């Protein structure tokens, strides 16, 4: 259970306290990642099934790693090698996998709403690993975690220092009052949505930036400001999230070409040096199109926290699996005290 929720479908339904609880738990999980033996027996005998209807390496491997560190059994199921190619429906697939008694189903699907649809019809817990243009809650959480680490790291030092990635215990209160710019194809981005919900719930201001053709209507109502000039969006921001431009969209009417996109909305070393504050961090959910939304110098430069995002992703997903698989869902009575604490 994540607070009141049996499933993790998105950050929109979560309260500020539920988000903070998950992030705080991830701090303890990150400590486990740094141990000489990166394994705890917590979820022994629990099974996590990764049900992926869309290509992914990072998220699937991250959930799989998180499950294995917690000693759960992890199974991967990808649509390209499955009976979906024979015409099996989403619900039939989910029900068949459920009959094998997993404790958590991790679902990625090209259609927004698919994880919720499955969650309403199966007995086990469901974690959304990205659905269409809806949400990608584990990415939103790892972005919050990484931002809090960055803000905590540079916070104590006036003028700040970027690039020195010493270990800090993130203070999630540092997110309040900060400004985060999210740049790219907002209308097709589930990351932008999850980031927006998470950031605004923790008190940050969000600027959306991208070509007008990639800006969904009504985003101001979601709490973000809209900018079409990159400079205007990133100047004065405390962090910038650069979204991946999906190749399949390039050349269609949304953007004429990669060179033009890169010229107007890509971030290179020159723009970063001229427009960004000295402590501004750069995030990217990956995979990067080098030279399109982000130049290599910036992606590999001192401002980049992209690899921290990947490490924190494992810790955040451990926290998600722990809360979804831990505890007996159907039992409401607390365990006797003798079992709880000796």
């Amino acid at each position, binding site marked *: *259970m994540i607070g009141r929720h049996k499933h993790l479908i998105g950050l929109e339904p979560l309260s500020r306290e539920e988000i903070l609880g998950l992030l705080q738990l991830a701090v303890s999980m990150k400590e486990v990642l740094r141990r000489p033996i990166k394994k*705890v027996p917590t979820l022994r005998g629990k099974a996590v099934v990764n049900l992926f209807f869309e290509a992914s390496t990072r998220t699937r491997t991250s959930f799989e790693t998180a499950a294995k560190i917690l000693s759960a059994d992890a199974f991967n199921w990808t649509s390209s090698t499955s009976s979906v190619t024979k015409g099996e429906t989403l619900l039939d697939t989910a029900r068949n996998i459920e009959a094998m008694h997993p404790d958590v189903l991790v679902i990625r699907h090209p259609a927004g709403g698919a994880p919720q649809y499955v969650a309403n019809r199966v007995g086990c817990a469901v974690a959304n690993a990205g659905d269409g243009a809806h949400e990608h809650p584990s990415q939103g959480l790892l972005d919050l975690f990484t931002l809090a680490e960055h803000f905590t790291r540079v916070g104590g030092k006036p003028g700040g220092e970027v690039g020195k990635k010493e270990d800090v*215990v993130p203070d999630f209160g540092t997110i309040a009052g900060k400004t985060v710019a999210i740049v790219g194809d907002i209308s097709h981005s589930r990351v932008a949505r999850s980031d927006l919900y998470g950031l605004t719930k923790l008190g940050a201001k969000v600027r959306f930036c991208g070509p007008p053709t990639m800006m969904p209507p009504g985003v101001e109502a979601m709490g973000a400001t809209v900018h079409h000039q990159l400079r205007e969006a990133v100047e004065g921001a405390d962090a910038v999230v650069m979204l991946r431009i999906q190749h399949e969209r390039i050349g269609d009417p949304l953007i004429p070409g990669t060179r033009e996109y890169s010229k107007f909305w890509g971030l290179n070393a020159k723009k970063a040096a001229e427009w960004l504050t000295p402590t501004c961090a750069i995030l990217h959910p990956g995979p990067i199109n080098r030279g399109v939304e982000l130049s290599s110098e910036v992606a590999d430069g001192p401002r980049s926290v992209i690899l921290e995002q990947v490490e924190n992703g494992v810790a955040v997903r451990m926290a998600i699996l722990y809360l979804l698989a831990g*505890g007996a869902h159907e039992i409401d009575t607390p365990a006797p005290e003798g079992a709880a604490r000796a």
Partner: protein
Amino acid sequence: MNAEGIERALKRMAREIQELARGGELAIVGIRRGGVHLAERLRRELASVTGQKPLVGTLDIALYRDDLSERASAPVVGPTDIRFPVTGKTVVLVDDVIYTGRTVRAALDELVDFGRPRRVLLAVLVDRGGRELPIAPDLVGAKLEVPEREQVEVQLVEGGAAEDQVIIKPRGNA
């Protein structure tokens, strides 16, 4: 048990630890949450006895519990903080109260995942009996026979109490 009694017990335990651990490199590890402040106090006592401060660390056993599937929701996980190699050290596990022994079982399992200590000692302020596992403390502040329906609470000033004391109260509304 009052503040004076607690202080006397810790001083005695520190001397006993020094004797038991003679020659080995010492590390004091408090089990969260009850053992953390006591570990720090034992460390100070040991420092005044031996002249050198032993290493100190903290274990949170939530990820090693044996009752995860029996509980309504997953227990809160606090920070574990062991910043030294435990291999070859004499490690003193510290908790406030020993009861069923299940916490110590979990703490031992967690500790050995950090390395192979030369020796592990268990120090508790209160042994209230009622063991469910074959586990016994090496150093005990006080032995109390407490019936199952009651619980022992160790209150320390570091934890926000007005004064140090050990109280026994009815179980439940903790």
